[in-house]
C-alpha cells in the first residue's frame, strides 16, 4: 500500500507537482476563508430565556415566571443543566445543552417548550424571549455616540433608531444592545389630586388612552374604475394629541388628559447607564456577533458600516468605538504567526547545519508550509476557526512536521551517495530509498497522531480549548506524511538528478566523535546508568507535589475590566456617582486610554446585572508605551490600592472576555465558585457568610465575594382583606393602583415613521416619591369615594431578597474567589477540608465546588485515564512492529525519561501543571517514542546485517546520532519562540513549550545514552539465554 503510493508518485511526478500546486492554491483560499478569532470559543451550548417583568420583586419573578419556565425546560433531550436568576423585574433562565447539540436545534427545543410555559405565566406579567445567538466572545465591538449639544435622550433615539437599525444589517451581527442614555417615552404624569377633584378613576384614564389611539382599515371603495383604499387615522402622534384626549364630561364640559396630568417626554425607567472618562454619561452600544462568525471579518464590516453611518448622522453626532476585539484577534494571531515564522527559521537553520546541503534542507523545509496549507484546507472543511489554539497547534507541530521528510531525504541522500554511478539510475535509487523508509515514516507519524488522541477526548471547556490544537496538529502531520511520501521523493528526483555526494559534515562529525567515546564508557556501567536514570525519574516524580496546578493560564486580553459591587440597596444614581468617582482614579495612570463605566444592565439580552454592579472597562495603551509601571500585575496592584481608598465598594479585576466566559461557564465570574444549595434564603445567606469567613482565612484567597441574595429594601404593601371587604373592594383594585399609579404602566405606543415610543402612565413623581406619599395614595372605592392606601393595607419596611439564583430548580448561594500566589488545586483541597470541618449545615443543605477548578479536575481525570491507554496503544503498535516485548518495552521507557525533563523544566520555571503543560507532555511522548524507535530499529537492523551486539549498538548510535539530535532539536527549537514570546496568548503556550523543550533535553540525553545501555543489557540477557 505504502509502496504503491510511493511508486505511483515516482511514476506520475508531474501529476504530483500539479497536485501540490492545487493544494497550495486551495490552502491559500482556505486561509482567507478561515474565520479568525482570538481564542477558541469555549462558551457552552446555551439558550437563555429572558423575561422582563417591570416592577416585579425577585420573589414574584421567581414564583410566577422563572418557575414555570424552568419546569417546562426540564426533560428536554441532551440537556445538561438549567440555571436561573430571578432579580428585580427580570427573569433569566439559562438552559445548557450538551456540546454536540446544534444551537439552532437547541433554540428550537427551548422555543417549543416555552410556548407551554407562557400559558403558566399570569397574563400580562411578562413575555419570555430567547436571548441573542451569541457567545462569551460575542461582544466584539462597543461604541458610544459622541454628540455635543445633544441630550442623552436625543442620542439614545439616534442610537436606537438609526445606528442600531443600520448595524443590524451587517452580516454576522446578531444583535446590538443599547446601553445608557434615556429612552424617550410619552409620559402621562397623573395628578391624583386633580383626578380626585374631577372624580376620575385610574381605570377610566387607562381605558380612554387605549381607546383613542388606533388606525383602522376601512377596506376600499370603487370610484369609476379605480379602487380607493380607506384608512381611519386615529393614532396619536404628539404630546398635544395625548393632552387632548377627553377623559370624561362633567356638566357638559369635557375633562381632558391635560386637565389632570402633565404630558411630557420623559425617560423610560432604566436599570443601567454608562459613563466615560469622568465626563459624565454617554449613550453606548454593544454589537453582538452571531455565533460562529468570523470575528475579524465582522469587525471589518462593522467598521465600514460605521463610516457610512457616521456620514449620515446629524451634524456633530458620531459613532466612536471604545473597544473592539480586532486588536486582540490580531495580537493573538500575530503571536502564533511570529512563533511559526521564527520557529520555521530556526528549523531551517538546524536542517542546514545537520544536513549540510541547501537543496535537501530546502526540500524538507518545503513540507512545512505545505503541511500547514493542507491543515488550513481541512480546518476550513471542518468549520474550525483560526485562533490562538488552533494555530498554536501548528506552532507546536512545526518540529514534528519535518520529521518524515528528514528521514526520507536523509535516506535518499545516503543511497544516492552510496550508489552514484550514473544518472539513469537516480530515479530507481530514490524509489528504492523511499520504499525503504516508507513504512517507518508512516509508523512514526501515526504514533505522533496517536499521542494526540487524548486531546480529542477532552470534554467541555478544555475540549473546546485543546481539541482544535489536536486537530490542526493531526491535519498538519497528515500533510507531512503525504508530502514526505510523495512530493519529497519527487522533488529529490528533480533536485538530485545529477546525484549527490554527501560531504562530510563538521558538526555531525564533531558530535559523533564526542559522543561515541562517551557511549563506550557508559555502556559498560549499565547498573549505574539504570540506577541513575531511575533515581532521576523518582526524584522528578517527587517534585510533582510541589508543582502548582491550575486549569489554563489566564490569557491577557490587553484590556482590563473592574467589576465593582456596592451595597445591594444602592440606587442606580448612587452607583453611577460612585463609578464616576472611580474614573479619575483610574485615569491617573498614563497607561490608561479610556475608562468606561457600565452601571447596571443594558437592554434585555445582555448580562442581567443589577444596578449596584458596575463594570469598568479600562482601555490600556500597548504595553510598550507604559511608563509608570513595569507590567500588568504591577498596574493592577497600583489600581487596586487606588480604588481601595474609596469606602463601601468591593471590586474585582478581570478582563472583558474572561468575565463573560467565566460567567457563561459556571455562572460565576471568578476562578472558584463554592455553591451552597438549600431552600431558605435566610439560611443560605447566613451559612454563606460563614463559608465566606472560612474561605477568607485560607492563604491565597483573593477577591472573595459572596453572592448578594439579600439586602434589597422593600416597602411591603399587604392588602388588609377585612378592611377592603367593608368598603366593598377587591384586592385587584388596590393592586392596580400600586402597579400603575406607583409603578407605572405602558398603555400604548406613538408611531413616528419607523420609530415607536411607549405611552407611559404613572402618577407624577411628587405624589409617590416617599413612603408617606405612598401611604396616602388614594384608591377609588365602589361608592365613588376615595381612600388612602394606608387605610386598606398594612405598609411595612423590610429588607428582602435581591436576587434568587437556582441551579437545576434548587435555590443556591455562591461564594466566589480568585486564587493568588498559589495554585488552584491545593487551595481547593484546603478549602474543602476547612469547610467540612468548621461548618455544620442543616439537613437538605449541601455544598458544591465549581469554577475553573472543576474543569481542571475533570480534564486531569480524563487525561489520567486516556494517556495510559494511549501509551498502551503505542506499546501494542511497537510490539506489532518489532515483534518483541523487550524492544517495545525499551522504547516505551523513553516516556518516563521524557517526563523527567518536563517536570524539572516546570519546576524551575515556576510554571504550574496545567492543561497546556499536560499537552506538552503528550507531544513530548510522541517525539521521545520516535527517537526510541529510530534507535532500536536501527540496532535491530544492524544486528540482522550480522553485526555483534556491541558493534551494532555503537555503530547504530553513531549513525543515528544525527537524526535523533535533529528530531529533538527541530522539535524543541521550533518551540523556542513560544517560550520567549510575550505576546497575547503566549501565557497558554509557554507551559507547553517549557515541558516539551525540557522533556526533549532529558529524553534525548537518555535516548543517546541510557537506551543503548539498556538495549545492550536486555539483549545480552536474551543472547545469553
Amino acid at each position: 500500500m505504502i509502496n504503491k503510493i510511493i511508486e505511483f508518485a515516482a511514476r506520475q511526478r508531474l501529476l504530483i507537482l500539479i497536485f501540490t500546486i492545487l493544494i497550495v492554491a486551495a490552502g491559500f483560499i482556505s486561509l482567507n476563508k478561515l474565520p479568525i478569532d482570538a481564542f477558541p470559543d469555549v462558551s457552552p451550548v446555551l439558550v437563555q430565556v429572558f423575561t422582563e417583568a417591570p416592577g416585579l420583586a425577585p420573589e414574584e419573578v421567581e414564583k410566577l415566571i422563572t418557575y414555570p419556565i424552568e419546569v417546562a425546560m426540564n426533560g428536554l433531550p441532551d440537556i445538561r443543566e438549567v440555571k436561573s436568576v430571578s432579580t428585580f423585574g427580570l427573569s433569566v433562565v439559562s438552559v445548557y445543552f450538551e456540546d454536540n447539540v446544534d444551537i439552532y436545534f437547541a433554540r428550537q427545543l427551548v422555543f417549543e417548550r416555552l410556548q407551554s410555559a407562557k400559558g403558566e405565566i399570569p397574563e400580562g406579567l411578562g413575555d419570555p424571549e430567547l436571548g441573542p445567538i451569541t457567545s462569551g466572545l460575542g461582544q466584539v465591538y462597543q461604541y458610544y455616540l459622541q454628540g455635543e449639544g445633544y441630550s442623552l435622550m436625543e442620542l439614545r433615539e439616534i442610537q436606537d433608531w438609526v445606528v442600531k437599525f443600520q448595524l443590524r444589517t451587517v452580516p454576522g451581527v446578531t444583535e446590538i444592545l443599547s446601553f445608557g442614555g434615556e429612552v424617550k417615552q410619552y409620559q402621562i404624569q397623573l395628578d391624583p389630586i386633580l383626578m380626585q377633584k374631577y372624580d376620575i378613576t385610574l381605570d377610566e384614564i387607562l381605558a380612554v388612552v387605549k381607546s383613542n389611539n388606533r388606525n383602522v382599515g376601512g377596506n376600499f371603495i370603487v370610484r369609476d374604475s379605480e379602487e380607493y383604499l380607506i384608512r381611519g387615522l386615529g393614532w396619536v402622534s404628539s404630546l398635544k394629541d395625548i393632552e387632548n384626549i377627553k377623559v370624561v364630561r362633567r356638566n357638559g364640559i369635557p375633562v381632558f388628559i391635560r386637565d389632570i396630568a402633565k404630558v411630557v417626554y420623559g425617560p423610560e425607567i432604566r436599570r443601567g447607564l454608562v459613563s466615560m472618562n469622568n465626563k459624565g454619561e454617554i449613550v453606548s452600544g454593544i454589537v453582538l456577533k452571531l455565533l460562529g462568525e468570523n470575528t475579524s471579518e465582522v469587525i471589518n464590516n462593522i467598521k465600514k458600516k460605521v463610516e457610512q453611518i457616521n456620514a449620515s448622522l446629524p451634524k456633530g453626532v458620531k459613532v466612536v468605538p471604545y473597544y473592539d476585539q480586532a486588536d486582540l484577534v490580531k495580537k493573538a494571531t500575530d503571536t502564533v504567526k511570529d512563533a511559526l515564522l521564527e520557529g520555521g527559521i530556526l528549523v531551517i537553520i538546524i536542517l542546514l547545519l545537520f544536513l549540510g546541503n541547501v537543496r535537501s534542507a530546502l526540500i524538507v523545509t518545503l513540507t512545512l508550509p505545505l503541511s500547514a496549507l493542507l491543515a488550513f484546507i481541512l480546518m476550513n472543511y471542518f468549520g474550525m476557526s483560526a485562533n490562538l489554539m488552533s494555530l498554536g497547534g501548528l506552532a507546536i507541530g512545526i518540529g514534528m512536521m519535518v520529521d518524515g521528510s528528514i528521514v526520507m531525504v536523509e535516506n535518499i541522500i545516503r543511497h544516492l551517495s552510496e550508489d552514484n554511478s550514473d544518472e539513469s539510475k537516480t530515479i530507481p535509487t530514490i524509489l528504492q530509498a523511499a520504499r525503504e523508509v516508507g513504512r517507518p515514516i508512516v509508523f512514526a507519524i501515526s504514533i505522533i497522531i496517536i499521542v494526540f488522541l487524548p486531546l480529542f477526548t477532552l470534554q467541555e471547556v478544555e475540549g473546546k480549548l485543546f481539541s482544535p490544537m489536536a486537530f490542526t496538529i493531526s491535519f498538519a502531520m497528515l500533510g507531512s506524511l503525504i508530502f514526505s511520501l510523495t512530493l519529497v521523493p519527487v522533488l529529490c528526483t528533480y533536485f538530485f538528478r545529477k546525484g549527490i555526494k554527501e560531504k562530510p559534515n563538521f558538526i555531525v562529525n564533531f558530535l559523533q566523535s564526542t559522543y561515541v567515546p562517551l557511549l563506550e564508557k557508559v555502556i559498560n556501567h549499565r547498573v549505574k546508568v539504570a540506577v541513575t536514570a531511575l533515581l532521576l525519574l523518582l526524584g522528578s516524580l517527587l517534585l510533582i507535589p510541589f508543582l502548582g496546578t491550575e486549569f489554563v493560564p489566564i490569557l491577557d486580553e490587553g484590556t482590563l475590566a473592574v467589576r465593582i459591587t456596592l451595597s445591594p440597596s444602592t440606587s442606580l444614581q448612587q452607583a453611577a456617582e460612585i463609578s464616576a468617582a472611580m474614573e479619575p482614579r483610574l485615569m491617573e495612570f498614563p497607561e490608561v486610554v479610556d475608562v468606561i463605566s457600565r452601571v447596571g444592565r443594558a437592554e434585555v439580552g445582555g448580562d442581567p446585572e443589577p444596578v449596584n454592579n458596575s463594570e469598568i472597562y479600562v482601555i490600556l495603551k500597548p504595553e510598550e508605551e507604559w511608563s509608570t509601571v513595569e507590567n500588568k500585575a504591577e498596574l493592577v496592584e497600583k489600581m487596586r490600592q487606588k480604588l481601595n481608598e474609596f469606602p463601601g465598594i468591593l471590586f474585582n479585576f478581570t478582563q472583558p472576555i474572561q468575565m463573560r466566559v467565566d460567567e457563561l461557564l459556571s455562572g460565576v465570574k471568578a476562578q472558584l465558585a463554592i455553591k451552597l444549595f438549600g431552600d431558605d434564603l435566610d439560611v443560605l445567606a447566613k451559612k454563606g457568610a460563614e463559608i465566606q469567613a472560612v474561605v477568607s482565612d485560607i492563604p491565597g484567597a483573593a477577591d472573595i465575594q459572596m453572592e448578594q441574595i439579600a439586602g434589597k429594601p422593600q416597602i411591603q404593601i399587604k392588602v388588609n382583606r377585612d378592611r377592603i371587604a367593608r368598603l366593598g373592594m377587591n384586592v385587584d383594585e388596590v393592586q392596580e393602583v400600586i402597579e400603575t399609579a406607583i409603578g407605572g404602566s405602558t398603555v400604548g405606543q406613538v408611531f413616528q415613521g419607523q420609530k415607536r415610543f411607549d405611552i407611559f402612565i404613572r402618577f407624577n413623581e411628587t405624589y409617590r416619591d416617599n413612603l408617606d406619599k405612598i401611604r396616602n395614595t388614594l384608591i377609588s372605592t365602589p361608592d365613588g369615594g376615595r381612600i388612602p392606601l394606608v387605610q386598606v393595607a398594612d405598609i411595612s419596611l423590610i429588607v428582602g431578597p435581591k436576587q434568587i439564583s437556582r441551579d437545576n430548580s434548587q435555590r443556591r448561594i455562591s461564594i466566589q474567589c480568585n486564587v493568588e500566589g498559589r495554585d488552584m488545586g491545593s487551595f481547593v483541597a484546603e478549602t474543602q477540608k476547612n469547610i467540612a470541618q468548621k461548618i455544620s449545615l442543616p439537613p437538605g443543605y449541601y455544598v458544591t465546588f465549581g469554577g475553573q477548578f472543576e474543569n481542571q479536575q475533570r480534564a486531569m481525570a480524563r487525561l489520567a485515564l486516556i494517556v495510559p491507554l494511549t501509551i498502551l496503544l503505542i506499546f501494542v503498535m511497537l510490539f506489532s512492529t518489532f515483534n518483541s516485548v523487550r524492544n517495545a518495552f525499551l522504547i516505551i521507557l523513553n516516556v518516563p525519561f521524557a517526563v523527567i525533563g518536563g517536570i524539572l523544566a516546570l519546576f524551575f520555571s515556576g510554571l504550574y501543571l496545567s492543561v497546556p503543560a499536560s499537552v506538552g507532555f503528550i507531544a513530548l511522548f510522541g517525539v521521545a517514542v520516535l527517537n526510541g524507535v529510530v534507535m532500536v530499529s536501527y540496532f535491530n537492523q544492524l544486528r540482522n546485517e550480522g553485526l555483534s551486539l556491541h558493534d551494532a549498538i555503537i555503530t547504530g548510535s553513531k549513525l543515528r546520532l544525527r537524526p535523533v539530535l535533529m528530531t529533538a532539536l527541530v522539535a524543541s527549537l521550533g518551540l523556542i519562540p513560544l517560550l520567549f514570546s510575550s505576546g497575547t496568548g503566549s501565557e497558554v503556550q509557554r507551559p507547553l513549550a517549557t515541558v516539551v523543550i525540557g522533556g526533549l533535553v532529558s529524553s534525548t540525553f537518555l535516548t543517546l545514552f541510557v537506551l543503548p545501555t539498556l538495549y545492550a543489557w536486555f539483549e545480552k540477557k536474551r543472547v545469553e539465554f
Partner: protein
Amino acid sequence: MNLKEPSIIKTTLIILILLGLSIYGCTEKNKENVDSGTKEHGSEIVLSPKIIQEIGIKVGRPQYSILHQSFSAQGKVVVNPDYVAHLNSLVTGRVRKIHVQIGDYVKKGDPLFELESLEIANITADYIRAKADFEAEKANYERIKKLRQEDIKAEKDLITAKANYERAEAELKAAADRKLHSLGFSDEDVETMFSSKEHRRGVLVVKSPISGYVTERNIELGQLIQPDTDIMKVIDNTRIWVEAGVYEKDYVNLKKGQKVQIEATALPGKRFSGKVIKINKELHPESRTFKVFVKISEGKTELIPNMFTTVYFYYSRPDSVLVVPEQALQFDGEEYFVFIEKEPNSFVRRNVRPGIRADSLVEIKSGIEKDDRLVLRKAFFVKSEMEKESFGGDQH
C-alpha cells in the same frame, strides 16, 4: 508673636497627622467593642479625611427640635354660608329687566333684575284694595270715634267700626303687606307703591340682599320664571372658608383651632394659612371623610370659591425632641442605627430607636445623647464600608 508660636506648631502637627491619615487611606481596625454597656457593636470604620471630604460625609451633633408633623386632606374653597344669597321668586313671572351680569359686584340693595307677574299684579292690586279698604275703614273708624266722643254715634257703631278697621288693617298687613314683602318688595317699595306706576303694573325690582359678586344668573330677558327657578346667586367671596375631607386615619390628629396651610391647585406655589373652626362630627359614609371647615387667616386672598385645594394640617407635640437628619439613620432590615464618631474619622455603629419623622428629620427616642457626634450626611457610605465584608459580590 511669641504667644502664637505654639499654635502654629499645633496646626502644623494636625496637618501632618491628617496627611498621614490620608496616606494611610481608609482602613478598618478590627477592634471589637467588648464594652457591653454601650450598644455599639461591630468594628470601627476608619475613613481618611480626604475621602470624607470627597464624599461629603458630614459629622455633627443631633439637635433638639419640635417636629412639625402634618397630614393633608383634599378640599375646596367655599363661601362662609352666611354670605351666600340665592335669589328666586315665589311666584311665576316674567323677567322684565336685568341689571347685572355674572361677576358684577353689587352692593346690598342694588337692583338685580325686575320681574313682572300677574300674581304680583294681583297681589299689588289686593294690597291696593286692602290699603284702600284699610284707609276707608280707618277713616270710618276715626270718624265714628270722633262722633262717639261727641256721643253722636252709639258704642256699638264704634265697636263695629273698630272691628272693621282692625280687620282691614290685618288684611292689609297679612294679606297684602306680608305677601308683598315676601315677594321681595321693601317697605319703601310698598310705601311708594301708589306713586310708582310700575309697581302698580305688577313689577318687582329684586335687590341684592348682601354685598358681593353675582355668581349665578340663570335668567334671560323675557324668561318665564317658575317659583322653583334659581334665578341668581350673590356671594361675598371675601368671606370664604375652606372645606376639607379628613380621612379616618387622621381624625385623632384633628383639633378645633388647629393651624393649617392651604394650597390651591390653581395657584401653585402659594400657601395660605388658616385654622380649623368647625368639625363635622359625622363621617360621610361614601367619601369616608369628616367634613372640616377652615377659616383663612389672611383677610383678602385670591382664593375663589370651588377652587380645589389641599389642606395641610399641622400637629406636633409641644416639647422638643432629639432629632437627626433622615440621611443619618440607617436600617439593616431588623434594626435602625447611626454612626457615632468615636474619634476623628473613626466611626462605629450604634443601634437607636427612631420616633416620628417630619421635614426630613427623624426623632431618636433612645440610643444617642445630645453630646454624641454622629454622621449626619452620607451615612450610606459608612454603612456600605461596614457591610462590605458581608454584602458580597454579585453573581448569577
